[in-house]
């Protein structure tokens, strides 16, 4: 699953739709595992030729010129924009693990994907079982990804949307109900069913609205973080220990292959999405800024105007203050079926043509128009506001799962948790750096998970005894 980082460049029209990634949802039972967000792919779209602001009439000559202007506008704000949500998610997971014992208890229940138990007599048997579990899990993931890619390729959008809808429904209602129940049990809070029902109902409905339709950005971000944390907690509870570590390792390898290999399913997904200029599916990507959608210039009869019905990027109708980021001009991305003209009747189009002359949109003219500076408020000093960063929810889930497992399993040691946390964040930094350099879809899992795993095992086995001895004698280094 391509849990990857995407960078949106808000001030230029980019054909950088980020497709949805693996999304599986298994109904029923405690074995539900809904991979809410296999993540988007990291894309840079096209580097903004901000030089166009100075020579507006020139047509883009091509990538060569763009390369010559190293206009990499990545500020510290980008990294902060991702650090904060990832940290929050991890904090929620670790806090829950440390306080609510439900998620660390071994009830003997397992997911249907990991049928082999790990409480066996010999180590060899345990190893074998965990390898088998991991194999089954990864095969399921691969199959689901293929199904998703096929569905996407054959434009079965309704099926995918329905699937996403069901899984977020499950997460927002069922899992959060269980979570709340366990928290109440831990803190011995008495709660009546009616209040609980009202709370869960409101939480769930607002969550569905925010994620799948429109809502304030912060609320949407908060909900995405919460569902990632819930999913990570489910994994931590139901995956036995060795299986969990193996799955983390194998999934980062799979992520790498799926996104970078030419025939990788996720690469196919990204390329198909780019060809069609389509946006991400909702509920799979965490986005740090508001993405505005503005109707572009008239593009003629044959082309569908860019009204988007189902937008995950909560478009705000008007800026609240002059300091609001300039609107994004995205490529045409109709999710609605072709027969729907989105309100632009043939009458209106005809009138436009009459007034402005026949307009035929070609690749060239469209790109030229995209390069034009649109009428927007003057660029502020702080250009970083224009850019947003995106990270797939799958990344959140697996990062939090690693840190949660570290805090659950590492004999209560906080140093291990801290070390994994720092390692994952540094991996994320490196991934963003590579994104800036290579400017194409990149997986966000491999580097972070690799660092996380190395530091987990190293800290747990090497650093912990050393620090324990130091603390015993109160030596300071």
């Amino acid at each position, binding site marked *: 699953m391509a849990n990857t980082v995407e960078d949106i460049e808000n001030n230029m029209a980019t054909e950088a739709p980020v497709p949805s990634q693996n999304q599986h949802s298994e109904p029923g039972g405690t074995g539900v595992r809904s991979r809410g967000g296999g993540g988007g792919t990291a894309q840079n779209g096209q580097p903004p030729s*901000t*030089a166009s602001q100075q020579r507006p009439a020139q047509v883009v000559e091509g990538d060569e010129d763009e*390369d*010559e*202007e*190293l*206009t*990499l*506008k*990545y*500020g*510290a*704000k*980008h*990294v*902060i924009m991702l*650090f904060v949500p990832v940290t929050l998610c991890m904090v929620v997971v670790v806090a829950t693990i440390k306080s609510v014992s439900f998620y660390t208890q071994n009830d003997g229940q397992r997911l249907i994907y990991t049928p082999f138990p790990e409480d066996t007599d010999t180590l060899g048997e345990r190893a074998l079982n965990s390898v088998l579990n991991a194999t089954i899990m990864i095969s399921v993931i691969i199959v689901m990804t293929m199904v998703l890619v096929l569905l996407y390729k054959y434009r079965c959008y309704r099926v995918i949307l329905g699937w996403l809808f069901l899984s977020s429904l499950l997460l927002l209602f069922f899992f959060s109900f269980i979570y709340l129940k366990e928290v109440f049990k831990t803190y011995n809070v008495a709660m009546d069913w009616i209040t609980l029902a009202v709370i869960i109902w409101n939480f769930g409905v607002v969550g569905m609205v925010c994620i799948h339709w429109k809502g304030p950005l912060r609320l949407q971000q908060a909900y995405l973080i919460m569902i990632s944390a819930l999913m990570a907690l489910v994994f931590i509870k139901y995956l036995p220990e060795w299986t969990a570590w193996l799955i983390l390792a194998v999934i980062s390898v799979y992520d790498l292959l799926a996104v970078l290999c030419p025939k990788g399913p996720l690469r196919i997904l990204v390329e198909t999405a780019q060809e069609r200029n389509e946006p991400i599916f909702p509920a799979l990507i965490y986005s740090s800024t508001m993405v505005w959608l503005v109707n572009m210039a008239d593009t003629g009869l044959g082309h569908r105007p860019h009204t988007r019905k189902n937008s995950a990027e909560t478009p705000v109708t008007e800026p609240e203050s002059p300091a609001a980021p300039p609107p994004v001009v995205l490529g045409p991305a109709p999710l609605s079926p072709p027969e729907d003209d989105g309100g632009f009747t043939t009458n209106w189009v005809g009138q436009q043509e009459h007034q402005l002359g026949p307009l035929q949109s070609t690749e060239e003219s469209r790109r030229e128009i995209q390069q034009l500076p649109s009428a927007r408020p003057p660029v502020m*000093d702080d*250009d970083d506001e224009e850019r947003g960063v995106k990270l797939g929810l799958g990344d959140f889930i697996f990062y939090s799962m690693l840190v949660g497992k570290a805090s659950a399993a590492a004999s*209560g*040691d*906080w*140093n291990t948790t*801290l*070390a994994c946390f*720092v*390692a994952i*964040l*540094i991996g994320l*930094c*490196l991934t*963003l*750096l590579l*994104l*800036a*350099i*290579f400017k194409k879809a990149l997986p966000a899992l491999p580097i972070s998970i690799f660092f996380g795993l190395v*530091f987990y095992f*190293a*800290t747990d*086995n*090497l*650093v912990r*005894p*050393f*620090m324990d*001895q*130091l*603390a015993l*004698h*109160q*030596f*300071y*280094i």
Partner: protein
Amino acid sequence: MRVLSCSDADMYEQCSVSPFAIGFSTVASPPRRKDSIKVMHPPTSNTTTFNWAFFWLCSLLLSSLVWFITVQISNKDSSSQQKGLLIFGVVLSVLLQETFRFGYYKLLKKANEGLLMLSSEETMPISIQQLAYVSGLGFGFMSGAFSVVNILADSVGPGTIGIHGDSQHYFLSSAFMTMAIILLHMFWGVVFFDACEKQLWWSLAVVVSSHLLVSCLTFQNPQYVGSLVPTYIIMFLMGLWAFVCAGGSLRNLKFCLTCKDKDFLLAHHRPR
């Protein structure tokens, strides 16, 4: 086009040069026309505090690896030998920390120079003093966290301090010591970078030896008087030294405290 500017004093969001970023950018996409390169912020600025924390962690990892190996091959029953090995581990750890600090400093310098070469800017994207401060902060944060977080976690749970005859002041002394260490790391960072910039190797030696001294003083614990008091004296002295290295003086201090420093105010004035 926005020219690189570092007027923001917000240290943590300061665009900080990641060495790999600059190195890679020079290698991966060589400029064709030098004058056309307008590097805005350095490519993927990272929050340097985390980078430094990561390097501190790496140094700790290496030293614990060495210690672990020595313990495995030693006599596990002899407690004096174990204590000796632990002392060796502490000294090694201190030396490795300073080595990593120096190593990362060199890397960042190279990266900064590379960036300057590429861009048409005259000044560095981040001043060396800010880098020094952030380095000290990163090291101090990680060191303090590793020292104290387990103790904090244990302090919540049920228990009695020193029930087996150990000192009653365990938590208190740990807290004070940790604070001293964090502040010391910050001061050491500033002095260290200043010494490296001005090639004052004796300053460098003093920093390293004061770090060693502070760690060795803790060998006296639980006689806290012998360890805490000198540590705090050293901390104040290092603080003064760092203040002077960073360009501070009584005059600056006075202006700062009375909010009369016009240069500072002008530089940080944000137009509405």
